[in-house]
């Protein structure tokens, strides 16, 4: 991409001129002729430096090796600069945003005596989101280093998907779909789990005959097996609040956990969907397949953007929440609106599980004698909140920093069922 540029005295040349003028002024003010010996070399250096051509435009190209990647995957970033005339130096200074880290390559790279220059780096995105890499400050200095021009370049945008943690689909809703899947249902079918024994009927396979029961009863009996069924999973992300250190905020944790859970269920043939609470209500109905994971991941990228829209949480569409779907809410349990939503869903008969993603406590004020008391009240308040949810039949899972999501979810053996279907 060609860019029109303006040339300015280089920073070093301006500094030489400024210091020389100061020395001259000091000589005049103090009457100390010797100070001219400080100014003369600086001025002479400016005059003696060769002055080359200054082209009107510079061609800059910034490219990244991928437009989509997962967190902590490495990306090659390359920037090339081409100038019509001979330059003394073309320097590149990569200023990475906090969400990226530099893996290889020096942040500052310089090429001497050239018309074209290229700099490359390997960077690693640390936090999910839709981001551009840069800016890369490209500074071209003409011959003698007295004139320079600077342009900025960005590469991207790049969609950085959240890296899903390893999770197994442990939680199974009481009601399963009629589609074949990997969860053991209550209905009798063609699965592998033992479900019961019944009398032989014409058409039953001989390999299903239970010979022990047959010999005891004197009549042919066959084993029944439980049906293997698929489940519907709807993940909800509470984006009403986003707190914590950058890269490890509650929203980051929630999005990563949701991605892990969705990937695990989709891998076993289940259907997965998502609803984001916060700002404009966004949802994606449950669907199977790997493609659905990427659709969900792309939708999640928009969660972080600020929105002044107040969502109508009472109108979550039926296609986003099919009957019997397992609902898992990732929330820091701070905003009452999201808790109201899950309580309402539970009362409507949905199996609901809440994953608490708040991993830090408020830091007490050093000068306040009441901070300890305030912290204790805060803890009690949260305990009461969790107790209230569990009393309503909503298990609350804590996900500490030093624990895998899979281990945290293992604490819930089964999702409570409730009479009455939505």
């Amino acid at each position, binding site marked *: 991409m060609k860019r029109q540029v303006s040339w300015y005295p280089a920073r070093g040349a301006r500094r030489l001129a400024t210091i020389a003028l100061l020395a001259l002024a000091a000589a005049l003010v103090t*009457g100390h002729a010797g100070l001219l010996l*400080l100014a003369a070399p600086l001025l002479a250096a400016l005059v003696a430096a060769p002055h080359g051509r200054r082209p009107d435009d510079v061609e800059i190209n910034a490219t990244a090796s991928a437009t989509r990647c997962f967190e902590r995957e490495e990306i090659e970033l390359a920037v090339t600069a081409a100038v019509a005339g001979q330059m003394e130096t073309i320097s590149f*200074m990569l200023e990475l945003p906090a969400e990226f880290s530099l893996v290889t390559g020096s942040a*500052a790279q*310089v090429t001497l005596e050239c018309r074209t220059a290229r700099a490359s780096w390997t960077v690693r995105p640390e936090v999910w989101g839709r981001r551009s890499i840069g800016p890369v*400050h490209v500074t071209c200095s003409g011959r003698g280093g007295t004139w320079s021009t600077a342009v900025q370049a960005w590469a991207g945008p790049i969609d950085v998907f959240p890296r899903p943690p390893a999770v197994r689909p442990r939680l199974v809703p009481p009601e399963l779909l009629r589609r074949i899947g990997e969860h053991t249902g209550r209905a009798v079918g063609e699965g592998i789990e033992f479900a019961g024994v019944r009398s032989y009927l014409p058409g039953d396979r001989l390999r299903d005959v239970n010979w022990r029961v047959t010999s005891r009863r004197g009549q042919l009996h066959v084993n029944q097996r439980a049906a293997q069924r698929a489940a519907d999973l709807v993940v909800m992300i509470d984006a009403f609040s986003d707190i*914590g250190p950058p890269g490890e905020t509650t929203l980051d944790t929630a999005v990563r956990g949701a991605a892990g859970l969705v990937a695990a269920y989709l891998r076993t043939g289940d259907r997965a969907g998502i609803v984001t609470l916060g700002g404009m209500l966004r949802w994606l109905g449950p669907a199977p397949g790997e493609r659905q994971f990427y659709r969900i991941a792309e939708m999640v990228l928009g969660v972080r953007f600020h929105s002044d829209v107040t969502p109508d949480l009472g109108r979550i569409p039926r296609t986003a929440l099919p009957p019997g779907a397992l609902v898992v809410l990732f929330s820091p349990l701070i905003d009452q609106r999201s808790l109201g939503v899950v309580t309402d869903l539970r009362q409507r008969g949905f199996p609901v599980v809440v994953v608490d993603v*708040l991993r830090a406590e*408020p830091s007490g004020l050093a000068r306040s004698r009441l901070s300890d008391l305030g912290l204790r009240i805060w803890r009690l308040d949260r305990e009461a909140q969790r107790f209230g949810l569990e009393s309503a039949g909503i298990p609350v899972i804590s996900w500490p920093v030093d624990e895998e999501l899979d281990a945290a979810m293992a604490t819930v053996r089964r999702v409570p069922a409730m009479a009455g279907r939505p």
Partner: protein
Amino acid sequence: MRAVTALAGVVLVVVPVAADPRGLYSVAVVGLLCALVTGWPQRGAAVARHVAATVRARTGIPARAQIAPGRGPSAVGPDTATAVAAKGREPGPPGPDAAERVRTAAGTVVAIAVIILCAASRLDTAAMAGEGLLLLGFLLLLGRPAGLAGGTARAWLRLRLPAVLGAVAATGIVLAALAAVPGSSPWLALGGLAAAAAAYVVAAPRDGPDGSRRG
């Protein structure tokens, strides 16, 4: 090369103080500290940020990042969210661009301190000429592009040769002028120097607008 720059800065400051140890120690101390910062700008930037954070903490003035417009749902979160959000707002390590700015700013301060010290001291003409050439070397090293190393640095230094030769010539001219008319007015010396510079600019060959050379 960073250590050489810092050493040049230290020598620049120490020479006028050693020649006339009567005062201006505060200027010398500031100059010495800044000379050291030009050698180790990362530490200088870290110290500057630490000092700024301490001052902000004492005075309650928010940092620029903390008064930036809302960056997401936290802006509408309840009070509890704000209390927890206060964690993790520690300043990060200074970036390469910040270190570069600190280095060049410190170098400029060193140069100004040297001018003040030289104006107040009784350095003889030869020492002053040495100071001038050393000051030029210091400023040239200060203006080197970030990221120079090894062979590239040597090649870049070779490109500075015409400027250094011009500076040596100019120093010689001024020395000769001062020796020829001892005790003359600085105005007179300045006029002579300006005339010499103007003659050089007029006579020296340079590139035309279309790249052709003309004399």
